[in-house]
């Protein structure tokens, strides 16, 4: 767990938040702070409690016990104030379908105190969203774009985004990432929950993992990348001293050792720590191909979710069949 520096203001504070629905414990003793200006990612399996925690922020749900403060205010007592300074994108977005997108945004703008629609229209244009069309006639992706626009358009201090890019194609996701970066540059804080770990990796500063209602870890993305380890795939001539490679001290898991048509053998393994020894050994072999890439956030977290699997011996599951290259 990462300790937060005492000088940072906290835009969101969960203090031992517990939420029960009847006998079901949705969130258990959640302690979490989100600092001003950061992008915080909330990840976890379905039903882990992410959406529940988010809905408490907006006073849709009331805590069973514990406290929640947003922008320094009580989430329940001062909800009106909080909601006037927040932009929210819910997980299963529902929109009024009988009006066109422009009218919908206009109505929302009025509810929020008439900030004006210039920024909203500009965002819609960047997302390639036609505001003149009736909401009911739009595809899921386009409706999601409306959701994104309405969350960002009044330049709120805090953005609460639940699965914001679901249904969006890769190009649009890129625009979304730019929008997040710009919002942060202008001083906003972003709290988002997502299944798409590659995106969380790209956008977030810190990531918290929640499983079965409990917060399991909080990490800085930068630290995770540094300590993540690497996938290594090396192609060497058949008969080479492969043992020297796979018995290196940093090797955590050997995936496969397979002979290929061209008289070579392909070795794939994971390695943590210093790569210097690896480079020295590779230098002694006649390497025809080499791929070294970082382990993904997804793999890291799957390890955390399945610690027994991750702790197995490196040789536990070595494949020896079909050559990939």
């Amino acid at each position, binding site marked *: 767990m990462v300790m937060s520096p005492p000088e940072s203001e906290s835009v969101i504070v969960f203090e031992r938040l517990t939420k029960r629905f009847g006998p079901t414990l949705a969130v258990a003793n959640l302690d979490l702070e989100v600092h001003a200006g950061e992008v915080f990612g909330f990840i976890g399996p379905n039903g882990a409690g992410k959406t529940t925690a988010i809905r408490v922020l*907006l006073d*849709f749900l009331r805590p069973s016990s514990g406290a929640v403060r947003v922008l320094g205010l009580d989430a329940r007592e001062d909800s*009106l104030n909080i*909601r006037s300074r927040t932009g*929210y994108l*819910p997980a299963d*977005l529902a*929109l*009024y379908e009988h009006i066109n997108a422009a009218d919908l945004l206009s109505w929302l703008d009025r*509810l929020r105190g008439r900030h004006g629609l210039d920024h909203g229209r500009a965002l819609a244009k960047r997302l390639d969203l036609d505001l003149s069309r009736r909401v009911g006639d739009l595809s899921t992706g386009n409706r999601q774009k409306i959701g994104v626009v309405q969350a960002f358009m009044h330049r709120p201090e805090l953005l609460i985004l639940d699965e914001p890019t679901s249904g969006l194609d890769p190009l649009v996701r890129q625009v979304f990432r730019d929008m997040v970066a710009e919002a942060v540059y202008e001083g906003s804080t972003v709290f988002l929950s997502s299944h798409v770990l590659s995106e969380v990796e790209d956008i977030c500063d810190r990531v918290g993992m929640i499983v079965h209602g409990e917060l399991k870890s909080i990490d800085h993305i930068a630290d995770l990348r540094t300590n993540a380890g690497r996938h290594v795939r090396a192609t060497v001539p058949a008969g080479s001293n492969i043992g020297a490679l796979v018995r290196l001290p940093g090797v955590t898991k050997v995936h496969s050792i397979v002979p290929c048509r061209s008289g070579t053998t392909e070795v794939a393994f994971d390695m943590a720590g210093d790569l210097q020894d690896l480079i020295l050994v590779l230098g002694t072999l006649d390497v025809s191909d080499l791929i070294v890439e970082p382990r993904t956030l997804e793999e890291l977290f799957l390890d955390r979710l399945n610690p027994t699997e991750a702790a197995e011996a490196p040789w536990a599951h070595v494949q020896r069949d079909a050559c990939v290259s």
Partner: protein
Amino acid sequence: MGIALYCGVMVAFFPTIRGSESYAAALEDYPDALKELFGGDTGFELTTASGYLNAQLFSLVLPILLSIVAIGAAAQLGAEEERGLVDLVLSNPIRRRRLVLERALGMGIIVFILSAVILATLGVVGAMVDLDLPFQNMLAATATTSLLVLLHGFLALAVAAGSGRRGPAVAAATVALAVGYVLNALAALVDWMEPARFATPWHYATGNTPLVNGWSPESIVALAVPALAFVALSVMFFERRDLS
């Protein structure tokens, strides 16, 4: 518009029935129980203006038609919550009670407009066929019917506000409407059930036959108080609970 048309047609037909002696004679032969079931002694006198209007419109048809509209509008709140639209609205700086009160006000306006149309239709067509009913009586009848409808509509609103669902809201209000009607009608027939009629809103709406007797302040109060109570309950339920 359909309601107005229906009212207009019903009233227009009255002259053919009014004073028709054979019609009156035929009705005399109906079993008493049946007559009482459908509106008591005065209610089944199809040959008088008040009796006719009562039977054709006010004792059942108009309340039902208007209730469909009012209950539907109230249950929409539940439907919107089921769909997730309440999240969209309440993520903005709006108090929960505003949502409920705006809905209640909207229902009141709809019922008021429909009632005004009905009243106008009755007035116009009635004048054309020489209906000869005091306007005050028609106004009183329309007003009590409106209150009856709003009472059940606000009951639906309270259930929608408390449950977050459309189905239970419609069911509760519809059952209340039906049970109330049946109890009120049966109470006229079955001696030991007589007191039960005081528990039904229908009694207060039609029991004093406003078409015949004009305004009855007790009826107005007996309908308005529960109606307002349901609105208050709606606000309370909606403010307190977790949104689904």
